[in-house]
């Protein structure tokens, strides 16, 4: 039988992959990261549970960071009154939202509401700043990936705009 003391001392060397790391590996923001990077990232993540219909955040509320869906699904909406609610997107497991709050101090631009009971992972600006200071290589990788995704979205928006203008 293994001694509990020794297990405690060497608990950091247990390599079994957690559900958090498993989810993070599917997110494009964290592509090209090593196992060690993921274990460091896991420590920064905040796991939150929401019941169906709960607001994750409201439009115009101050935003602190992005969320990744580990279980369940959510919808992004504008307007909360029945009839005036406009659903912009429905997101499921492995998808992320709210990432703009990582870059600016602007308030949230839409509501995020849980469609069913869900578990989310939160990555917040102060954590990213601390990571940037303590492990710049990992911080740069994440920032570069985020920049790439935002660039891709901008390109798509430009494409749609050009398409609309040429009609």
């Amino acid at each position, binding site marked *: 039988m293994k001694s509990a003391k020794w297990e405690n001392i060497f608990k*950091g060397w247990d390599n079994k992959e957690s559900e958090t790391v498993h989810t993070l590996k599917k997110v494009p923001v964290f592509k090209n990261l090593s196992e060690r990077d993921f274990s460091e990232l896991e420590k920064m993540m905040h796991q939150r549970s929401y019941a169906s219909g709960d607001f994750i955040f409201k439009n115009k509320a101050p935003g*602190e960071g992005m969320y990744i869906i580990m279980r369940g699904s959510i919808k992004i909406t504008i307007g909360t009154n029945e009839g005036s609610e406009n659903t912009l997107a429905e997101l499921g497991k492995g998808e992320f939202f709210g990432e703009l709050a990582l870059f600016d101090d602007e308030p949230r631009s839409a509501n995020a509401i849980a469609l069913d009971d869900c578990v989310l992972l939160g990555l917040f600006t102060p954590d990213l700043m601390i990571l940037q200071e303590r492990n710049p290589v990992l911080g740069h990788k994440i920032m570069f990936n985020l920049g790439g995704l935002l660039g891709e979205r901008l390109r798509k928006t430009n494409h749609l705009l050009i398409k609309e203008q040429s009609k």
Partner: protein
Amino acid sequence: MNHTQSNYIQQIYRIILFLIGLWFLNLVWPFISDVILMLIFAFLFTTLLLSSVDAFERKIGNRNLSVLGVVIILLGSITTFLGSFISQISLQAQEFSQRVDQDTMTSEFKSLGEKLTSALPSFMQNEQSSSDYLATKLTELTQGVLGSLGSLVGTVGNFMFIAVMVFIFTIILLSEYHSFKKALVNSIPNKYFEVGLKLIYNVEKSVSSYLRGQFLSAASVAVMSITGLLILNFFGANITLVIFIGIIAGLANLIPLVGPFVGMVPALIIALMNNIGNDAATAHMFFGAIPSPFFALDIIFMFLVVQQIEGNLITPALVGKSVGLHPMLVMIVLLIGGTLLGPLGMLFAVPATGVIKVILVEVAFLRKNSHLL
């Protein structure tokens, strides 16, 4: 009962609850104050050491071993410093006691008194033998200081107990810091999650930037004091243990207002011990004009210059901005802290006010934007 009345009763109910809370705190405070103080110190040490432990953990991939490594390095450094300091100071004291007995000290102080009296204008020179009086008083004072060192032993025992407890708390906090923080964050209800998270980070940032500022400020005082003392030695001040005196001055500087003056005391004592019997040092003149026996005025002047540089250039740049408090408010909270808890109160007054300020800002924001939560 209408709505206003109900609100009024609720307010009274809250005030009564608050007063009962204060009374209860006052009742239990004597029993918990020491533990709270230990926890505060442990938290401050944790904040200082956290980045080193995190960096070490990244290298070896194990938290507990990283804490162990950092603690061993820290203990090694402290033991080396203290051991070397104690052996140096005992050597110094041994050499001093061999060189100077009580009679020599009295005659030395007597000649110093005569020199000082003769340097004074004639109308200030007393007819009675002021040099005798000064010599006896100075001897009594020096003997008294040396004698009271014995009573320090009891205090050292108490200090050792507190130090060991702080050390244990620091190890636990360092090892479990991220888990504790996560547990704290997890306890925030979803509605207040992002605001609560921001509050925790702002408090953490305020404390760590204050500590970092203080640490750099203490380091700069130590370096400047060492440089200053070496310059004085160049002019014949004969001050030994320069590095230790510099480090003590840097550490003492952490206590606002009083600290800088405490910092210059060891330098004055060492200068006195080393220069007793040295006629050139006894007759030394500050800038060739004012009598400065044993380079006392030179040392005080040097420390004042260091304090001015630190107080007007370094601290405002490193510490003041980090907490974002008005200088007037800093003075007021220092006085309140000093009155309530003495030097410890002064040490904690500024960061505690910084934390309270961060909490008040967030509470005000919450009250204004509660509809967005």
